[in-house]
Each structure stands twice: as C-alpha cells, then as structure tokens.
C-alpha cells in the first residue's frame, strides 16, 4: 500500500470514529430543544389570546407588531398588562421548578425529591411572606425583600433538609419524605402566622390563598423581570453541573474517585436549586409536584443523562405550566382556580405511582 493510500485509510477510519453513535444523539438533543422552543413560543402566543375575553390571534399579532398603534386600547391593556406578564410568569415558574426538581433529585439520588415535597418551596414561601408583610419597600439592586428573603429561606431549608435526611451517604425515601413533610408543615403554619400579623386582613387572606395554594395571579412586569433574571441565572448555572450530577448519581465514593469535588458540587446544587425555587415561589407561591412530574416524564423520553435532562426539563416545565395556568384561569371563567390545584390533581397521582414503584426499584 502506498503512503497516500495509507493516509486515506487512516482518514476514513478517523471519520468513521468521529461519526460514532453519540454524535447524532447530540444533534437530536438540539433538534428537540429547537422544537420545544417553537412549541413554547406558539403556546405563549395562544395563551395570550385565550381568557375570559377571547382576543383574535390576528388582533394579538397586530398589537405585538405595533404597540403604539392607535385604537385597540382595551386589547392592548389585556395583552400587555394582564395576559402576557402572567403567561411569562407561568413559563418561568414551570422552568424554575422543573430544573430545581432535576437538581434536587440528582443531589438526593432520589426521583421523589421535588422542591415542594422536600420543603424548599415552603421555605421560599415563608421568606417571601416575611418580605411582603414586614419589608414591603426594601430593595437591593432591584430585588425586593420578597425575592431575596425567598432565596435565603429556601437555601436555609435545603441545608436543614440535607443535614437531617442523609443517613450514611444515602437519602432513604422514608427519611427524605418525612423530613420534607415535617418541615413543610412547620413552614406552612409559620407562613400562616406571619400572614395573620399583616395589618390589612383583606390583603392577608389574599396572600394566604396565593402562598399556600399556588396561584399565578396579577403579575407585575417588575416581578417578571426579577424572576427572569433569577431563573435565567439558575438555568445557565445548572448546565455545567449536568455531567457532575451524573457522577454524583453513582454515590459519593464514585463521584470523588471520578475526580469530582463532591462538597463543592453539593453546595452549588443547593445554591442553584434554591435560587430557582425562590424565583418560582415569589411568582406563584406553593405550586406542587411540577418538579416531580416533568423530570419524570422527560426521563422516560431522553433517559437519565443530566446534561440532556436539564435543558429539556426546563422547556417542558415551562410548556406544562402555561398549559396548566391557562386551564386554571379559563375552566371556571370568569372566576379562577389556583393553578396549584391542577398540578396537585395531576402531580399527586404521579407522586404516589412513583412511591409505589419505588418500593421495588428505588428502595433505599
């Protein structure tokens, strides 16, 4: 064989090696992400049209294209002041809770971990309530006391849960759920107590409905802005954790011997997960089970690899929650359901199913 022929053979081999099975999989990940993005944008548009007053898609489109056009004042107000911020809030809540769910499930090596179930949401709700009741005018770099305290309390709760629920390097389902149950109860009653300290009883009752049942109601653009910074930051920070999360799933010894700094990784997961939970809770209160259903369903389709799971779960969560929230505000139109009721109706059975199956597969 001549030298050039050898080089050619060599090159062919390299090309074949480069075209190993994983490469198409990476491409398909981007394809799925792209399709989900299109779906999300379409859904945001559709959800903006639907409501107590239905607005024709054409009208919504023309209002989007030219915000300052004459006429259509009522439609403009509905689209920009009421519906769009709310739909975007739902997307942020869904995305934040789903990614937080994936992160916590990886951290605890347990598919039952969800911000709501393990008490992280409860902590955020208490923090947010404290902010609303006691420091309504506080602001730090544009972040009000609501978001900041939600983050602090969610973080604190996670540290406590982590410290209480881990037994010898593992987190048995029973311990995790019991710790989550106890903490959630303590936090929920503390929230109620704090709310009752509010001087205005009408506001207090309204707050209780929001925080304890999970409802995305009149959302301000400023809230959407703060939450999108938090969710955006949390999402971007979660992606580099994907591969390490895979290693962490194998246990501490394995992760460490694979070169992972386990303590650092755990701190990062808790920090990012709490940030996402706090953003979601400061918009929608205690919306349960989203962080459980979405990762579970996405895992059925894309498998447990976290670097694929994180982006897809984020998008799927956003899509799911816009759908749920649109249903919540239209089913009993003109009155509204808290969206938490819908997610509980769907998520509760999924949770029980997982628990039942857990007896077999995820015991310990």
């Amino acid at each position, binding site marked *: 064989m001549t030298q050039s022929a050898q080089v050619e053979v060599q090159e062919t081999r*390299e090309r074949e090696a480069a075209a190993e099975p994983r490469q198409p999989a990476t491409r398909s990940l981007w394809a799925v992400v792209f399709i989900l993005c299109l779906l999300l944008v379409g859904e945001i548009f559709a959800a903006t049209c639907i409501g107590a007053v239905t607005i024709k898609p054409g009208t919504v489109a023309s209002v989007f294209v030219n915000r300052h056009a004459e006429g259509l004042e009522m439609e403009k107000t509905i689209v920009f002041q009421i519906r769009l911020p709310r739909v975007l809030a739902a997307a942020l809540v869904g995305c934040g809770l789903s990614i937080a769910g994936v992160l916590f499930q990886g951290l605890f*090596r347990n598919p039952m971990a969800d911000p709501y179930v393990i008490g992280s949401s409860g902590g955020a709700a208490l923090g947010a309530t404290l902010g609303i009741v006691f420091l309504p005018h506080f602001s730090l770099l544009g972040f009000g006391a609501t978001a900041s305290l939600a983050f602090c309390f969610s973080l604190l709760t996670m540290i406590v849960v982590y410290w209480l629920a881990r037994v010898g390097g593992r987190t048995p389902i029973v311990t995790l759920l019991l710790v989550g149950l106890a903490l959630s109860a303590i936090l929920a009653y503390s929230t109620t107590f704090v709310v009752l300290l509010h001087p205005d009883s009408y506001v207090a009752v309204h707050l209780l409905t929001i925080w304890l049942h999970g409802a995305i109601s009149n959302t301000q653009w400023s809230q959407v802005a703060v939450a999108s910074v938090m969710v955006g930051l949390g999402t971007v920070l979660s992606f580099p954790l994907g591969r*390490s999360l895979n*290693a962490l799933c194998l246990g501490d010894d394995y992760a460490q*011997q694979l*070169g992972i700094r386990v303590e650092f990784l755990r701190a990062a997961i808790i920090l990012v997960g709490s940030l996402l939970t706090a953003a979601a809770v400061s918009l929608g209160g205690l919306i349960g089970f989203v962080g459980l259903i979405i990762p579970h369903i996405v895992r059925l389709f894309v*498998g447990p690899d976290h670097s694929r799971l994180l982006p897809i779960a984020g998008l799927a969560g956003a899509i799911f929650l816009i759908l749920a929230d649109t249903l919540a505000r239209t089913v009993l139109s003109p009155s509204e359901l808290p969206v938490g009721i819908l997610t509980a109706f769907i998520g509760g059975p999924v949770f029980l199913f997982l628990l039942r199956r857990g007896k077999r597969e995820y015991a310990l």
Partner: protein
Amino acid sequence: MKTLLELRDVTFSYGTEGIFQQAGFTVKPGERIAVIGRNGSGKTTLLRLAAGLLTTRQGRVLLDGYAVNEMSRRSIAQVIAFVPQQLFVPFDFTVDQLVSQGRTPYLRALRNLSTADYAAINEAMSRTQITHLRHRIFNQLSGGEQQRVKIAIALAQQPRLLLLDEPTQHLDIGRQAEILELLLKLNLEGVTIVAAIHDLYAVQQTFPAVALLHDRTIAQGTASELLRPELLAPAFGLNGRALPILRRADHFATEEAHIEPVR
C-alpha cells in the same frame, strides 16, 4: 523499581476505633496484590486511603512520590481508579452512559466527548466484554455483568493503578472465575492491581503478592510467604480448632493449582 503508591507510617482511626497504627504499604508498577484480612481489619479503609478518599491522621500517602492529599481530585482520578464494593444507581442509566462517566476526570463541564474519549470507552467495554450490553440498563443486569461494568468504568479512566474492593463478592463461582481471569489479563496488559479478596483459594490461584491486615499493621509478601496457617490463624481468629479448613485450602492449592476457569 520505582514505587507507584506508598503508605508511609499511616495511622488511621474511625473515632476511637483504631484501624491502622504506623502501617506501611508499597505498590510497585505492574504488581498484582491481594489484600486479605478478617472483617473490619481495614481492607476497605486501606483502599480508600490509597485512592485519596480518606485523609490519614498521621503518616503520608504518596502517589508517584507526591502526597495524594496535595493533589487535585482530577489528577488523582487520572492515575488511580477505585472500584467500590457496591454501586447503587438510582436512575435507569445504560451501560454506555455509565462507562462514559469513566471519562469524567478528563472532561470539561460543557465539552462533548472527543474521539479519544470514545476510543477509551469502547476499549474499556471490549476489554471487559460488555460491548454487547452497552444499551442495556445497568439495574437490570446480573451481578457478574454489573461487576464487569464497574470495572469498565474504572478502565475508561485509563488508570495506572486499579483498586478493587471485593470484586468477587456475591458472585457464583463461575462469575468469580471470570472476574479473576479479567484482573489477571488486565494486569498482564500493564495495569497494576490491588484487590481486597475474601476467598483465600482465589488469592492463592491468582495473586503473586499478598497484603495481610492484622493487628492494625499491614504485612506484605508473596502468597507463599503469607498464606501459611501459622500466620492466617491469628489474623482470622481461627484459634487452631478450624485449622483443617486452612490445610484443606492448602491441599487444594497444591493439587489443583492449574485448574482452568470455567467460562
């Protein structure tokens, strides 16, 4: 010959329970060492100390002459691969996905795997003969297959030193033979091996060098030097009355030393 790994005057304890008292342990490149000793004598502790997963109270653990606790976790992971006794996988990872994780010490957080990474993964799977299982889910494999996957993860790290904690535990005798044969093959291909093994018969068959853990020290020597009833009886607390078991093992070893592993 240069020393690959050395534990020098290591003292270690869990709380008040002393495990090692000024113990020493040396591994030279290319060696195949079996770590033996009674339950709780510190076999796992020795392996975890060697892998840098535990920190010594006194004394030093040296890898290529450098202190392990001053090296980054990544650089240790590129030299030493540790196969823990148990691997519990909470999600439905496939064999392929697990073996790929052996590349973790070489990867940046967001970078895709390179051609070299795929080559290492494929080689690790073919050396452990699990290529046909690559799309199967780990949790659905048999014990022997799972053990081979664990070794493949370690091989994907392309380590110079492979530490295994009881790799033959809970396996039937045929699968035990497969694993031991695999370790032998890997060692002949140049990987240094230190494995905790309970079955002294297997040790006698497969390992030229032995480390006997007893009384918070580590005795190192060849298999024939250390696998003697007068040393094993006190180390395993046999008190003489059970010595016939040892003699029988001895007898087996001399009579049937050349038995071929059943496949």
